[in-house]
């Protein structure tokens, strides 16, 4: 098995969209999602020594995040929370002491009211990791956030033809990546 390295300085650029999407479908509140991800990063930093490189960084961060989400449900104790608390959970590990064994490679899909298309969202975000940083940013602004072409061109100081070339490359890469399972 290959050993995965840990590099906190890259966490935000590499994983924050992925973590955010994972969180927002479960807590449905932007501010709460933001705080939970902050807590996740900090807990990750505190328990870096437990990362043995067997799981991927992202899988490991997700396992921490899941615990944070469950803790959040416990605190708010809402009815929605009770319904969703069926996520796999080991009660005996301590705060800030995350073990990799607690990090299953795929999210245990026992929670029933997770968004129906979550798997698709995750697949797309995973495929977006194949894009360059600039392609990903521009594709996101154009496609997900719905910015006007002109606004993006101004922001990145590029011409509309530059933009469409970047969009074309991004779309080609994404379609290729998604083709196997989703086309």
């Amino acid at each position, binding site marked *: 098995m290959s050993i995965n390295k840990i590099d*906190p300085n890259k*966490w935000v650029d590499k994983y*924050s969209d992925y973590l955010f*999407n994972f969180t927002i479908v479960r807590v449905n509140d932007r501010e709460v999602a*933001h705080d939970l991800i902050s807590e996740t990063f900090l807990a990750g930093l505190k328990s870096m020594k437990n990362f043995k490189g067997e799981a991927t960084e992202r899988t490991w961060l997700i396992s921490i995040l899941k615990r944070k989400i469950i803790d959040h449900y416990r605190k708010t104790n809402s009815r929605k929370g009770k319904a969703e608390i069926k996520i796999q959970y080991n009660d005996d590990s301590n705060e800030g002491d995350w073990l990799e064994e607690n990090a299953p490679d795929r999210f245990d899909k026992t929670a029933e009211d997770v968004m129906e298309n979550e798997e698709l969202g995750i697949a797309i975000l995973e495929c977006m990791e194949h894009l360059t940083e600039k392609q990903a940013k521009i594709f996101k602004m154009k496609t997900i*956030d719905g910015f006007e072409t002109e606004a993006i061109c101004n922001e990145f100081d590029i011409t509309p033809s530059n933009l*469409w070339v970047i969009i074309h490359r991004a779309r080609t890469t994404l*379609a290729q990546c998604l083709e196997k399972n989703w*086309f």
Partner: protein
Amino acid sequence: MNNKKTLFIDCSEAAYCCDKKQYNEASLPEKLKMLLHLVFCKRCRKYSSHNNRLTELMEKSNIKTCTEDEKKVWKEGIKKELTDK
């Protein structure tokens, strides 16, 4: 680009029209020229159908991403924690 001159466009121009169409930014002439190209070009037909499918999947997934400001806050938090150690 001299796409106004001719009805027949090449593959790269067809792709350009097809991409614009995904964002409702293709003009009617562009759309017509693309359709005409697709009649003759199998490769672009494939690209076009993949491209349409991608648009469909993007909408269906309802992905939400975070803003650059949100990312900045996280980055600063991590940086602070790392230097405090």
